[in-house]
């Protein structure tokens, strides 16, 4: 009894001491404002201007947004592609990074370090994309074509990267291959943070199998990390661009692999229409923010 009184008393004494917390937060808050919030805000303002990087910006109201839906022929296609990419790579990448971490967690530390290094390697080797260019090379010498030819599956080489039919699945595979970076390791550190007693207590409480254990103990304890990897996954799966541009070029055949971000790159850094590029960025941001909201709702169900 006496002890609890002391705790509540000290709570009043020190937890009210917020000034020190502001000191801890300040360095990040200031730099975050300067180098992230301010540029994003000015980019949003810029989306209401006509700006070609040479002449002064010219206010045009919501014309950039109207142009998106009325005047831009590729806009519909890139939005469709982006959403398709996101719907496929997002959930798969999210689950893969969790499942792999969950599997790895059962190994001894040494094996775990080696295996997690292997999964993390693509994120470590910056220029890993070239290997996919060789694998899916359009002539008969690429790994894929020469294999299929020698096994007799096909009679003439397939132009993997120049066909509307194959380019999307290829980009999806490469994106998944490359995405095992941040959220995978975050999940590993989160998993190992779960108190072992939780599982013991769960066993007492009548948890019967691994799946119940996963659903009632592991996942709820991982909620924080799951939100983190979900947001990172949204950010990466909606922004697929460098992979697509490197493998398929821009514009790709029939716009089959063009995404909003590659469109932004084309509009902004090739055609210097910064105002319109900013408007496209704002649109993409809205799309991702809505998705995040839906995911947060979805994560609430976990463990019920």
């Amino acid at each position, binding site marked *: 009894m006496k002890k609890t009184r002391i705790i509540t008393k000290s709570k009043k004494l020190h937890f009210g001491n917020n000034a020190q917390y502001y000191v*801890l937060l300040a360095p990040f808050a200031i*730099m975050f404002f300067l180098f992230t919030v301010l540029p994003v805000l000015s980019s949003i303002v810029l989306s209401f201007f006509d700006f070609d990087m040479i002449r002064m910006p010219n206010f045009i109201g919501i014309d950039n947004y109207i142009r998106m839906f009325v005047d831009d022929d590729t806009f519909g296609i890139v939005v469709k592609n982006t959403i398709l990419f996101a719907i496929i790579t997002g959930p798969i990448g999210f689950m893969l990074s969790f499942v792999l971490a969950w599997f790895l967690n059962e190994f001894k530390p040494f094996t*775990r370090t080696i295996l997690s290094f292997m999964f993390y*390697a693509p994120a470590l080797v910056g220029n890993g994309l070239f290997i996919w260019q060789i694998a899916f090379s359009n002539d008969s010498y690429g790994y894929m074509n020469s294999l299929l030819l020698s096994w007799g599956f096909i009679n003439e080489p397939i132009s993997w990267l120049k066909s509307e039919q194959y380019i999307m699945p290829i980009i999806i595979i490469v994106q998944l291959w490359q995405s095992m970076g941040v959220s995978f390791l975050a999940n590993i*550190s989160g998993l190992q943070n779960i108190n072992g007693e939780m599982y013991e207590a769960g066993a007492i409480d009548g948890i019967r*199998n691994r799946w119940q*254990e996963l659903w009632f103990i592991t996942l709820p304890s991982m909620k924080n990390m799951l939100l983190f990897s979900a947001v990172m996954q949204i950010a990466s799966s909606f922004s697929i661009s460098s992979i697509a541009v490197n493998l398929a070029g821009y514009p790709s055949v029939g716009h089959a692999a063009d995404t909003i971000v590659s469109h932004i790159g084309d509009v902004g850094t090739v055609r210097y229409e910064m105002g319109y590029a900013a408007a496209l960025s704002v649109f993409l941001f809205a799309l991702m923010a809505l998705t995040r909201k839906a995911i947060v709702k979805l994560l609430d169900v976990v463990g019920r």
Partner: protein
Amino acid sequence: MNLLRVVKRSGITDDSAKKHKSLKASKEKNFKKYTRSKFGNFIFVFFLVALGLFSVLPLIYSIITSFKPLEELLVFPPPFYVVRPTLQNYRALPNLLSNLSIPLSRYIFNSLFVTISATVLYVFIATMAAFALAKSKIKGKAAFFVIVQFALLFNGTTLSVPLYLIYSWLGIVDTYWVMIIPYAATSMGVFLMKQYMESAIPDALLEAGEIDGAGPIRIFFQIAVPIVKPCLLTLMMFGFRDVWAAIPDGTVFNESLKTLPTIMSQITAGGIARSGSAMAVTVIMMIPPILVYVISQSNVMEAMSSAGIKE
């Protein structure tokens, strides 16, 4: 504490809890009984190793290619083996790098200096901010945290113009600072660290620190930092990897301030005849991030398995 929480949640009364406690000893032995069949185990390991090999392929490929002599480099498609391994790609490097306008050692110094200071600053600032966001009761922290998350969702293409204006307003264009400070302002670290801290640092420990009369800053350094060491090391690894490979676009012009990745692009521009040396440079450039990975992760795994500071 955790045990208690689960027991409470499940609504077990004191009486039955006692009964369960006696059962616990007998159950503890076969508590980890949820294992797979032998066949399941085989499938599981096979799946993991296959996926792992698939992931590590470009790394292996880069290393093999860097040991290929010129005539083997010209074979297409490039095979995953080398017939007559040679060091000539590595031996050619000093020669290729001798006609740089700035000595190589300067690039190495720049790279190390920029990467280490940016990483340290990034981890330090992110951890401090995350602690305030995770454990304080300051006003507006929830809103601030949502903004931090949203920042990860805004595409960077159109930010380059406003960013350049801000850099030049601060007078940091063409200095080391422009390579160091902006990275420390990225919000991924704060996000990850805050999520980690919330579940890793028990409030009871903080309260204990308060009873001892420590303020938030002392509690942060003496209690929080040691506990979140695994996450700290992971963050350090991410930071090192990102900054090490970064090429500042259009903010650094002075050759004596440039970092190693810029030499990379000079050598790769040499075409197919230099592709072996380019691969050799790639392999050398990969070594520091891999070292940081191994050091940090082996520490993480160790710290994890001996994690005794729980509630």
